C-alpha cells in the first residue's frame, strides 16, 4: 500500500502480488495490476522468489520493491532480481550479506570505530562455547540469531540455569526464520533504550542521516510505539548516533534506505545492535518530522539518481509518534487474535496520518503479522504530538476482534511515558495497568443499556411481536457474528 501510494504520485505503474488469502486485500485493489502467487503459506507465495520474478517478467516491470517483511532482507532475492535484469529497490545483495550476518556486522561496526556491546564477534560453536562466553562477559546476556534480526531467534538469559532452554528455543527459531541456527551472545544492557537512526545512501557515495526514533516500547522484542525525537537523545548524542550510522553505512558500501539500531544506556552511552537493510514499518515517524517521502526517495536512489539534498539541508520539525495497532488480546499477554472487522472508523484531523490496509468486512487471519494499522501523529512539539495521538486513538474504532487500542490509549496517558521516562522494560513494568478503567455515572448507564441491547440482539432470533421503540428494534436483530 505504502509503495503503491508513492508510485501513484510519481506516475509509476504499480504491480502487486498476493497470496490466496489476500485476494480481497486493499493493495490488490489499489494496484494497477495484481497477480496471485500461491497459497497463504509464505514459503509458497510471498517467499517464493521464482514466482515473484515470473510476475515481474510477465508484467514487464522495471523494478521490484520488497516492502518491509518477507524478502525485504533477503540477499538472494536482491541478487535474483538483479540477475533477472530488474532493479532492486534496496541495498544490493552483497551489502545485505555483509550486514545480515550479525556477527559480521558487529565486526564491521567495530572496525568503523562504532561502539559495540560486549560479546562474541563470531558465531558460537555450541552450547559449551555459549556457556564460557556468557561466563566471561557476565550475566545477564542476550542470545541472538546470527542470521538475522527483527526480534526473531532472540532470548534474554538471566543466569546459567536458563541457558539450556534459551539456547534450544533461540536456535530453533533462528533455523526456522533465517535458515541458520547460528547464535551469538552479547551483554544485556539493562534499562536501555532502543534508538535507531534512519539513513539514506545513493549510488554515488552520498550518505545522509535523517534523525532517530525511539522504539523502546516493545513486547516480545516487537515494537508497539515509536517516536522521534527520542526523549533521551539530545542534539550532541543525535550527532554522534548519526555519525556512527553514516560510518557503518560507508564501511558497508551501503545504498538506499536503511536503519542502524543502537542501545542507549542510562548514562547517554550507546552501542551498535544491527542494521536493518530495508525500509522499516516505523518510517512514517521520520517522514512526518523531516517532511520527506522515504519511499519516493528509495525509488529515485534505485533509479540511480543522486540524493537531492545534503546533510545540511535536512530539517527536523516538531515531534511524531506512531502507534502500531495490532490484532492482539492485550488483556491476555498480547496473544494474536483473529476475526472479521465488523466496523471500522479510522481517525483523521490535524496532524494525524493513518497507514492501514483495513476495511470493514476484512477477515484477519493468523497467517501473517498481527499489525492492522499504523496511526501516526505529528505536532510542533512532543506534547502536541502526544495530544493528537491520544485524540486519534480515542477516535479509532476497530470492532469485531480484540486490538491493542486499549494498550495504546493507556500508555499515551501514563505519567512515565508522558514524561519520556521509559526503556525496553516499560511494557513488562506497566502492563497490565494496576487500576482498571472506570466510567462516570452517565457513561456507565449508556454502556449498561447497550450491553442489554446487544445481548437481546444476540439471543432473540425471532422478530419481536410488538415493536415499541429503539430497544425492541434491536431485539429484531439476527444473531451477531
Amino acid at each position, binding site marked *: 500500500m505504502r509503495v503503491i501510494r508513492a508510485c501513484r504520485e510519481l506516475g509509476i505503474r504499480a504491480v502487486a502480488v498476493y497470496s490466496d488469502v489476500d485476494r480481497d486485500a486493499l493493495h490488490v485493489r489499489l494496484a494497477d495490476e495484481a497477480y496471485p502467487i500461491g497459497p497463504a503459506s509464505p514459503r509458497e507465495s510471498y517467499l517464493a522468489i521464482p514466482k515473484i520474478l515470473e510476475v515481474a517478467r510477465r508484467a514487464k516491470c522495471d523494478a521490484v520493491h520488497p516492502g518491509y517483511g518477507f524478502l525485504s532482507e533477503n540477499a538472494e532475492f536482491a541478487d535474483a532480481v538483479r540477475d533477472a535484469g530488474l532493479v532492486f529497490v534496496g541495498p544490493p545483495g552483497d551489502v545485505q550479506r555483509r550486514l545480515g550476518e550479525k556477527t559480521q556486522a558487529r565486526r564491521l561496526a567495530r572496525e568503523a570505530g562504532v561502539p559495540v556491546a560486549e560479546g562474541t564477534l563470531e558465531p558460537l560453536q555450541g552450547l559449551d562455547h555459549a556457556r564460557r562466553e556468557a561466563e566471561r562477559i557476565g550475566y545477564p546476556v542476550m542470545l541472538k540469531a546470527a542470521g538475522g534480526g527483527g526480534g526473531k531467534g532472540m532470548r534474554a538469559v538471566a543466569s546459567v540455569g536458563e541457558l539450556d532452554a534459551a539456547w534450544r528455543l533461540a536456535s530453533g527459531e533462528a533455523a526456522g526464520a533465517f535458515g541458520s541456527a547460528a547464535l551469538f551472545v552479547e551483554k544485556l544492557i539493562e534499562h536501555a533504550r532502543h534508538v535507531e537512526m534512519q539513513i539514506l545512501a545513493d549510488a554515488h557515495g552520498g550518505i545522509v542521516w535523517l534523525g532517530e526514533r525511539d522504539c523502546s516500547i516493545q513486547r*516480545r522484542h*516487537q515494537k508497539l510505539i515509536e517516536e522521534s525525537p527520542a526523549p533521551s537523545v539530545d542534539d550532541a548524542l543525535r550527532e554522534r548516533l548519526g555519525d556512527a550510522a553514516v560510518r557503518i553505512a560507508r564501511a558497508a558500501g551501503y545504498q538506499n534506505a536503511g536503519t542502524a539500531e543502537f542501545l542507549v544506556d542510562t548514562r547517554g552511552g550507546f552501542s551498535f545492535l544491527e542494521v536493518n537493510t530495508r525500509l522499516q514499518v516505523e518510517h512514517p515517524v521520520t517522514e512526518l518530522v523531516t517532511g520527506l517521502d522515504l519511499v519516493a526517495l528509495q525509488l529515485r536512489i534505485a533509479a540511480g539518481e543522486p540524493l537531492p539534498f545534503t546533510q545540511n539541508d535536512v530539517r527536523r520539525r516538531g515531534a511524531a509518534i506512531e502507534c502500531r495497532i495490532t490484532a492482539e488480546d492485550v488483556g491476555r*499477554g498480547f496473544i494474536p487474535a483473529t476475526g472479521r472487522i465488523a466496523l471500522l472508523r479510522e481517525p483523521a484531523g490535524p496532524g494525524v496520518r493513518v497507514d492501514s490496509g483495513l476495511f470493514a468486512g476484512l477477515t484477519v487471519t493468523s497467517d501473517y503479522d498481527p499489525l492492522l494499522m499504523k496511526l501516526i501523529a505529528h505536532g510542533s512539539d512532543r506534547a502536541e504530538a502526544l495530544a493528537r495521538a491520544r485524540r486519534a486513538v480515542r477516535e479509532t474504532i476497530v*470492532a469485531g476482534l480484540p486490538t491493542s487500542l486499549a494498550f495504546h490509549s493507556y500508555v499515551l496517558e501514563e505519567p512515565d511515558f508522558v514524561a519520556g521516562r521509559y526503556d525496553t522494560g516499560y511494557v513488562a513494568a506497566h502492563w497490565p495497568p494496576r487500576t482498571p478503567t472506570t466510567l462516570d455515572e452517565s*457513561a*456507565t448507564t449508556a454502556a449498561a*443499556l447497550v*450491553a442489554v441491547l446487544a445481548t437481546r440482539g444476540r439471543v432473540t432470533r425471532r422478530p419481536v411481536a410488538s415493536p415499541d421503540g429503539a*430497544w425492541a428494534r434491536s431485539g429484531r*436483530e439476527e444473531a451477531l457474528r
Partner: protein
Amino acid sequence: MIYEVSVGDRRVRVDLAGDGRFLIDDAVVAVDTTEIVRGRQWSVRIAGRSHEVTLLTLDPMRLLVDGHEMEASALDERAAAAARGTSAARGGRHEVRAPMPGLLKTVHVAEGDLVERDAPLMTLEAMKMENELLAPARGRVVRLAVGAGTKVEGGAMLAVLEEAE
C-alpha cells in the same frame, strides 16, 4: 425484562419495561438512543451528555464507550441465577490448550508418559516465536489430541493430563 449487567467492575440492574421505559437500579432514566450501525453501534444521550457505544466483540463482550474499552456482560435474571449454580471444574484433570493460534512444531511427550510439573510438553510456533507449553502439574499424559506439524487455533485442546500422586 430485568437484566443483571456488569460494566468494568460496576454491577447494575437494568429493567427494560414493556412500555419502553428504561430503569437502572429501579430508577427511571430518560435516554435518547439511536442505533447507528445495526447491532454494533449506538449513540446514547442522557440529560444532554452524548455517548457513543460500540460493541467490539460479543464473546466475551467488550464495549467501546467514548473511546474507553470496557468488559461488560448482561444476563437476564433467569440466566444469572443458573450461572451462579454451575460448579467449578473437576480437579485432578488438566486440559492443555493452545494459548494462541499457531503451528504445533514439536511434541515432546507420548501418551502414557509421566511428566513432572513444568516439563515441556510441546513447542508452539506463533508470533515469530517458539513457545514451550509446560505441564501444569505432575501427571500422566492420558491424551494427545494433535500431532506435530498441525496448525491449531487459539484455545484448541492439545492434550489431557491426569494428576499423579
